[in-house]
């Protein structure tokens, strides 16, 4: 049962992170856009989602959605809240990564007639991901841990499952230690995966730091 909860937590977090990559990139290019109102809107979004507690965001979304006539199971609300939250943090991570890429690379692309979209897609984003990989792993780890908050809206992820087990077995100490170990196992694996990719991407790339 605990294992089931752990799998649930892992898939939920992964889901939020992957969706967050997409929206985080959109938001990041919004933050860096030439268009003033788009930039302003992106900044507001970023500040709101970065500046309020995830638990509060979660509760607001959970209670707001039915209000707006959208009937999603608690799980849906959870994924939306985690995604919207991580998007704000990822956007900042990406922005920092993009700033390490010399502007000359963009000028060279522009002189070749490459469009802004293709510059972002083919030239900036691939390089940026190499730079931000460690921060992205960090963000994944923190989303994984923070996903425990969604137990409060009744999603049976790892923590909620543990609470249920405690309720029937009355052995809180053992169960919560086990839950903690399950979180730890997942975060350590994430860190290891991160290091593996870093090494692999690092191949023919050493000069990126010299340039």
């Amino acid at each position: 049962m605990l294992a089931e909860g752990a799998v649930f937590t892992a898939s939920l977090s992964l889901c939020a992170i992957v969706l967050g990559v997409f929206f985080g990139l959109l938001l990041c290019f919004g933050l860096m856009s030439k268009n003033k109102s788009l930039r302003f809107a992106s900044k507001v979004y970023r500040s709101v989602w970065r500046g309020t507690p995830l638990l509060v965001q979660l509760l607001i979304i959970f209670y707001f959605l039915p209000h707006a006539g959208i009937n999603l199971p608690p799980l849906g609300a959870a994924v939306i809240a985690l995604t919207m939250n991580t998007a704000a943090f990822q956007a900042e991570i990406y922005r920092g990564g993009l700033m390490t890429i010399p502007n000359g690379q963009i000028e060279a692309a522009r002189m070749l007639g490459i469009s802004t979209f293709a510059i972002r897609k083919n030239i900036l984003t691939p390089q940026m991901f190499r730079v931000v990989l460690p921060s992205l792993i960090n963000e994944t780890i923190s989303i994984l841990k923070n996903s425990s908050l969604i137990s409060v809206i009744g999603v049976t992820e790892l923590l909620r499952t543990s609470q249920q087990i405690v309720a029937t077995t009355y052995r809180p100490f053992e169960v919560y230690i086990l839950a903690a170990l399950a979180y730890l196992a997942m975060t350590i694996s994430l860190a290891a995966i991160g290091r593996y990719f870093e090494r692999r991407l690092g191949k023919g790339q050493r000069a990126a730091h010299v340039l």
Partner: protein
Amino acid sequence: MADAEKLALNAAPNGAPIIEVRDLHKRFGSLEVLKGIELEVRPSEVVCIIGPSGSGKSTLLRSMAFLEEYEDGEVLIEGRLLGYRQTPSGRRRDTDRNIDAVRNCIGMVFQQFNLWPHKTTLSNVTEALRVVQKMDRASAEKRAMENLEKVGMRSKAHEYPGQLSGGQQQRVAIARALAKQPRIMFFDEPTSALDPELVGEVLNVMQTLAKEGMTMVIVTHEMGFAARVADRVIFMDQGVVVEQGAPADLFETPRSNRLRQFLETWNERSSGDG
């Protein structure tokens, strides 16, 4: 009749200018960097721009490519205004698409090479061919290989920029610009970031290009190269063109004090280097 006359004029030995710069002004905040530049470049002409550091050489070249937005004056590339369009309410910045169309005939080479480090030599050269010209992979690679061959970098097609020397990277950057088949090439101090022993290989490639009749505008500190290859040398100081002419005239009989001083300093420095 008028059109026929114009055509005849175009075909005249010197040809109509392929680049015209008229009363060009550029400011960075309160600092006026270009103070009314006039310049004409004819097809197949090789023009070198020299001058002390901070005189506005890079800014001029970058304005001629609209990498800097100039405020006043005009840059005409093959007769078309670059960067702006006329509207009833005055001059407006042009759309990116139109700017790309006007400067499509220009290839640019930078001091810092500006290769994309996550792509191999080959895909640095094919990138624009694939995404801008929509060439299929095979023809893009064929075209890229021809251009790499030309700069002597064919054998390094599958290496990454980080594995190449500065001179090799710059030659790849030249191949990347040439692959688009530009009619004009801009160079901004293409050898200034190179170790002295690597300068020659890049200058050789550029000399070959000049011989083939490429129109070139080169900002450079390589006086020897300018003397050998340029049809015309432009001396800039403090945002104005102080003097211009054939390299022999300019280097041997400078008319202005500023150029004389500049050449003296340069001679001292290069003889000091040994």
